[in-house]
């Protein structure tokens, strides 16, 4: 055992000497643990495809300053314990310099202690605000928080003079976390939550819950935090019951496929979303336009599937990371971390990112656009 240990130490020392003597970058190994299967595969799948596409793209162009990028990616199936194991594997066995991932808040939270202990930069693709608040030295995230989505929806409701709100949310992590943020935020915007119902992730029919909500006197709008098939079924049931108040979906409805799945029932639905969904409709002078159009076209060409904001989160994470590596001129985890924190004015699919030591996400409410579905397509609400 001692022999093996000393052998390992010797190789490690040799490797260090090799690093120190050559000022150029060493092999750049980036890790990822995503929920490509399991209940969050709807999010994890486009994320994984995006990362693969971007790595191929950057290597075809010769990598970062001549160094190719190697992506080590695992599928944690949305299970926190698996994610923890893969995080350990990425750090200890694959010895990556940075990790992207944690499709869900649960998997992210279970990976964080590993990253903090190993001091490796970690960019999460999950929504909840707890990931970056309080700030953790090595942890960043690219998606907007669910709190922001709620604020955007409540802001729009307030502007329309609607205050009596019914909530219907899924029981998954994403939806429950957003529901909680909405409940917390409601008094701030003068909102009154008059109904609060939920449905399971694989439920087939939500008319009972919606009937109950519709029966509340004075109901003025319904908000549905959810992703996957839930929102499409809620929207269809909403129209079936002919409920005559505005329906708001969340940023979890993140791709054109929602309109296809919900069909005509989607007409008039509003939701906060990233610019990516409305790439075509952005004015030409919008700084995000070239980025989102470029990513959308590349993704749809590479995969043949509709682009989704979840893939966009992975795009932003990868770009922020590779730009940081380039600026750092080194593949040392500490140097990369410092540069990620200095990200300023990065124009991504989710918005314009300005990170600071206190803000490891760097997005503000302007990153969200309020969209409304009209004639089977998104329109931007001014």
């Amino acid at each position, binding site marked *: 055992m001692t022999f093996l240990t000393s052998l390992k130490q010797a190789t490690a020392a040799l490797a260090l000497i090799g690093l120190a003597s050559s000022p150029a970058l060493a092999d750049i190994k980036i890790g990822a643990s995503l929920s*490509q*299967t*399991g*209940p969050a*595969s*709807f999010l994890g*799948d486009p994320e994984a495809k995006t990362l693969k596409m971007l790595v191929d793209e950057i290597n075809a162009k010769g990598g970062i300053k001549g160094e190719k990028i190697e992506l080590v990616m695992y599928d944690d199936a949305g299970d926190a314990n698996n994610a923890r194991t893969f995080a350990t594997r990425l750090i200890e066995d694959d010895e990556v310099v940075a990790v992207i991932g944690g499709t869900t808040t649960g998997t992210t939270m279970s990976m964080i202690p590993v990253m903090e202990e190993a001091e490796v930069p970690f960019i999460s693709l999950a929504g909840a605000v707890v990931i970056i608040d309080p700030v953790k030295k090595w942890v960043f995230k690219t998606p907007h928080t669910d709190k922001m989505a709620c604020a955007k929806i409540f802001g729009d409701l307030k502007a329309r003079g609607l205050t009596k709100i019914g909530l219907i949310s899924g*029981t998954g992590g994403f939806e429950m976390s957003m529901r909680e943020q909405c409940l917390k935020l409601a008094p701030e915007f003068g909102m009154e939550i008059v109904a609060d*119902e*939920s*449905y*399971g*992730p*694989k439920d*087939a*029919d939500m*008319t*009972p*819950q919606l*009937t*109950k909500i519709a*029966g509340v006197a004075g109901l003025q709008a319904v908000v549905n935090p959810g992703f*996957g*098939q839930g929102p*499409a*079924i809620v929207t*269809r049931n909403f*129209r*079936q*019951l*002919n409920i005559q108040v505005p329906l708001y979906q969340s940023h979890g409805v993140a791709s054109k*496929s929602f309109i*296809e*799945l919900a*069909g*005509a*029932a989607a007409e008039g639905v509003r939701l906060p979303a990233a610019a990516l969904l409305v790439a075509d409709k952005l004015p030409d002078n919008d700084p995000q336009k070239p980025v989102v159009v470029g990513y959308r076209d590349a993704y749809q060409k590479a995969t043949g*599937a509709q682009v989704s904001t979840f893939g966009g989160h992975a795009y932003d994470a990868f770009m922020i990371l590779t730009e940081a590596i380039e600026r750092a001129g080194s593949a040392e985890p500490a140097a990369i971390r410092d540069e990620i924190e200095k990200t300023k004015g990065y124009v991504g699919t989710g918005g314009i990112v300005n990170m600071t030591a206190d803000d490891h996400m760097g997005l503000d409410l302007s990153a969200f656009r309020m969209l409304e579905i009209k004639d089977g397509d998104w329109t931007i609400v001014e």
Partner: protein
Amino acid sequence: MSDLLQFVFSGLTVGAVYALVALGFTIIYNASDVVNFSQGEFVMLGGMSTVFLSAAGVPLPAAAILAVVITALVGVALNKFAIEPARNASVVTIIIITIGASIFLRGVAQIVFDKQLHRFESFSGDVPIEILGATILPQSVWVIFGAAVIFTGLYLFFTRTLTGKAVLATANNRLAARLVGINTNFIMTLSFALSAAIGAVAGVLVTPITLTSYDIGIALALKGFAAAMLGGMGNPFGALVGGLVVGLIEALTAGYISSTYKDAAAFIVILAVLFVMPSGLFGRAAVNRV
């Protein structure tokens, strides 16, 4: 009043699907004493095959029929390559085999198809039908009607045809059935084909309402299994009642008590029933083999 009716419509739609899955469990169980945990994957294969065949240009009705045939063939293959070779293995061994089969089928589906959500058009549009202040979608009527047709058809098959009676005889006593000249291997193949086909039909009927993806099978198998046990495993009528009861409990609990714990309510009722009637509502009393 209209609220109650609305909850009942919801419960019947969902319950009809559970009933069809439970029926699939029951048919295979009768022929082979196997509880097939890949039953939910048959529903998935029915829906997903239809989606991809129709995307490939096959007209929807033809795509649906083709999907049912494909799924039936998968059922036959499952019996041939996984269940028959393990004949006489213990109950848990066979449960693990069918769980392995469900993982395998999901794995194949995520490669052959994809991991996105899919849907095809409802058969008769999406204009809700209004009855006494409650509404029901035409597709829900299709689901309930479809389930009724399948159950009636099966009833006639089991009681009026020689093959059907042979299936029942095999279910009752495999050895005796063989002694009177029934080809029990054929009966098993037939049962797997039938069970898979019923699952696929359920998948086709329900996709316009619930959408489909490669992993919808687990949740359906869970509820279908519970429904089959509630009704009494091995009794097709029990499967029908079990499915509808589970669906109705869920809808009524969501409507009147708590939507958060509606699934819990279904399982609490199942537990309570089993405590009083250990073989389910309509199950045969367990025979102790010494």
